[in-house]
């Protein structure tokens, strides 16, 4: 039983928290917000390329969670459900942007101000030396076509399972695997060209 003091040691699952919120426990809702706000931000940033817009969409996602919590049933994992809501809102926002044709320079390209990247000196020495700088990897990801980019972000950055990706994007697991494989190969090709 979740009490109002959410700082107890027991870690409740996401599904337990949403069920508690459905019964009226707002502390359970806040715990879910704390667990998912950053993950969703990074996920939606992949769509809109603007931290400000991404944060607005994350706010909308949690507002929708607040008003529509009763719609959650234990058919799918909570993470799948919340990521699906966020993805739909992000796509809606992208469609609006395309219709209005309002693109700032920040939105069109990669801007260091929107995305903080640790400098080379901050990278721990015992980490594997990657020949690809973070900045170029991000740029390369955003150059990918949308189906591959989404699959890659969900699988390789958000570290969701194939099944979760399949449910969020509403495609078969076979298609997920194919998109991830092709996305990775395309990413590799883009990075190779960038490095030349």
């Amino acid at each position, binding site marked *: 039983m979740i009490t109002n003091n959410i700082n107890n040691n027991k870690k409740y699952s996401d599904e337990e928290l949403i069920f508690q919120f459905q019964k009226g426990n707002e502390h359970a809702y806040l715990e879910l917000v704390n667990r998912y706000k950053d993950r969703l931000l990074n996920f939606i940033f992949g769509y809109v390329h603007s931290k400000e817009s991404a*944060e607005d969409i994350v*706010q909308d996602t949690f*507002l929708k969670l607040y008003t529509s919590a009763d719609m959650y049933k234990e058919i799918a994992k909570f993470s799948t459900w919340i990521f699906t809501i966020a993805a739909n809102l992000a796509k809606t926002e992208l469609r609006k942007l395309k219709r209005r044709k309002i693109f700032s320079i920040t939105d069109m390209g990669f801007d260091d101000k929107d995305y903080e*990247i640790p400098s080379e000196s901050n990278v721990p020495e015992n980490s594997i030396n990657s020949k690809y700088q973070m900045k170029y*990897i*991000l740029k390369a990801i955003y150059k990918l076509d949308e189906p591959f980019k989404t699959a890659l972000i969900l699988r390789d*950055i958000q570290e969701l399972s194939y099944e979760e990706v399949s449910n969020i994007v509403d495609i078969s697991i076979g298609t997920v695997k194919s998109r991830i494989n092709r996305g*990775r190969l395309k990413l590799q090709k883009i990075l190779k060209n960038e490095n030349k």
Partner: protein
Amino acid sequence: MNCYRFETLISDYLDNNISHSMKGEVEKHLGECPNCRAKLEDMKQILHSLHRLPKLQTSANFNEKLMEEIEHRKSKKKFIFKQFVYKYSQPLSTAAAVIILLFGVYYIYNSIFPNMPNQKISTSEIQNNILNPTQLSQPANNSINNLQKKPQYVKAENDDSSETNKDQRNNFENKIKMVNKEK
């Protein structure tokens, strides 16, 4: 296995999502093909970088802004409901009063003037009526006796062809007689 086939399996191999026999084939090819070996190592580095990408963080006041918005929407809902009630209370109450009044009138009318039941007349009664119109059976309902008695057969208002009607009746009588004879 060729290099093209290896490319289609590289992700499954890295994710360890491959059958034992297929894994053997891949590793055999890797032993023979330096290009594919280099490609695999390169892909490993890319995946490692992707997993270690620094993560964005939400603003410090994210939660505060969210709860403010929730409270704002809650109060907006109450406000909208109050506005609705205030704006439409008078017409709604008038409409409700009219409906109640209509129901009342309908109920009272039905109590005073209940519907008359339809009188079903059998074939034999028709026969009797044709031969002896005065012997037509009367409805048993006593309440009807309180009303002005209506004739069972009413002459059509615009019927000027009385001769034609008489002929038709005679023909019908003859037909009845023939049917009775056959029985």
